């Protein structure tokens, strides 16, 4: 049996870290809006997606404390996105190729 002591994690993250993450999230929102107002051709969508992904990663790492989480929690977090990736990749490998011209 596991008899070792388990410590309740104490959030020692300083307030400035939370404020800095907030500032980056707010800036990301404004950049997303400004970038959508400029015609960058095919690049508009990837830019919006990349900024949103960076914002989500910051929220997960700092606001959701993933950075201080146990390895087991990391397994669950990473597995979630692996399955999300499977969902998208397998689905799009079908739908995005259905309309390809057959030579």
């Amino acid at each position, binding site marked *: 049996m596991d008899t070792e002591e388990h410590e309740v994690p104490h959030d020692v993250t300083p307030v400035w870290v939370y404020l800095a993450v907030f500032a980056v999230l707010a800036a990301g929102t404004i950049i997303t809006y400004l970038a959508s107002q400029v015609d960058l051709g095919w690049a508009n*969508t990837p830019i919006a997606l990349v900024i949103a992904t960076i914002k989500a990663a910051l929220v997960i790492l700092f606001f959701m404390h993933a950075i201080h989480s146990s390895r087991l929690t990391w397994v669950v977090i990473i597995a979630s996105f692996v399955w999300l990736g499977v969902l998208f990749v397998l689905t799009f490998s079908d739908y995005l190729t259905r309309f390809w011209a057959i030579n």
Partner: protein
Amino acid sequence: MTVAAHDDDHVHHPFLQHQFEDLGQQHEASTLGMWMFLSTEILFFGGVLCAYWIYRTIYPEAWAIGAAQQKALWGGINTIVLIVSSLTMALAVRNASLGRKRGIVIMLILTMLFGLTFLAVKGIEYTAHWHEGLFPGSHFTWNEHPDIRDKEQLFMVFYWGLTGLHALHMVIGVGLLVWILWRAMRGHFGPEYYAPVEVMGLYWHFVDIVWIFLFPFLYLIHHHGH
């Protein structure tokens, strides 16, 4: 709550469930369980977003015109409101872990207020869309581009469906905040026991993340290439 003494002859914290060895293990189990739930949520929203992207590639014009119907200003304001609410939620968890009761209560109230602000703005947008004839079904009277009317209606199905599911999560979140606030006011939380606040935070931040993606998908990506 009374402090319970068991046969094993040591005093337990009143909120330590008997199946756990100590509060640290209980805290770990709580956050892990919440992440398990969130992973089902990620796939739940992921499935709807996947359908959104499939139709977006099939009907790019309808999707571009549909997103152009949205007021980016309202969506932008709401994005900032949610980010601020995530900041106050994170500070509520921080205060809980430091045992600052007043700080927890203030930050939880602020988080609730920002959550309600988000829902109020969403209500303004929903009312406008209803009057613009942009609610799918027999109320769908929008006809600016008759050739793609039905495809436009499909975009609005995704708009109402995705934002509606998100708003439902917000309503549930505000309800949970009322409960956590009540417990915080009764002094339940402190450095040794704040897992409910932490888990509440995980849920709240997840709902914020969903909106971080919905904002560009539904409001912004319309001007140019697909």
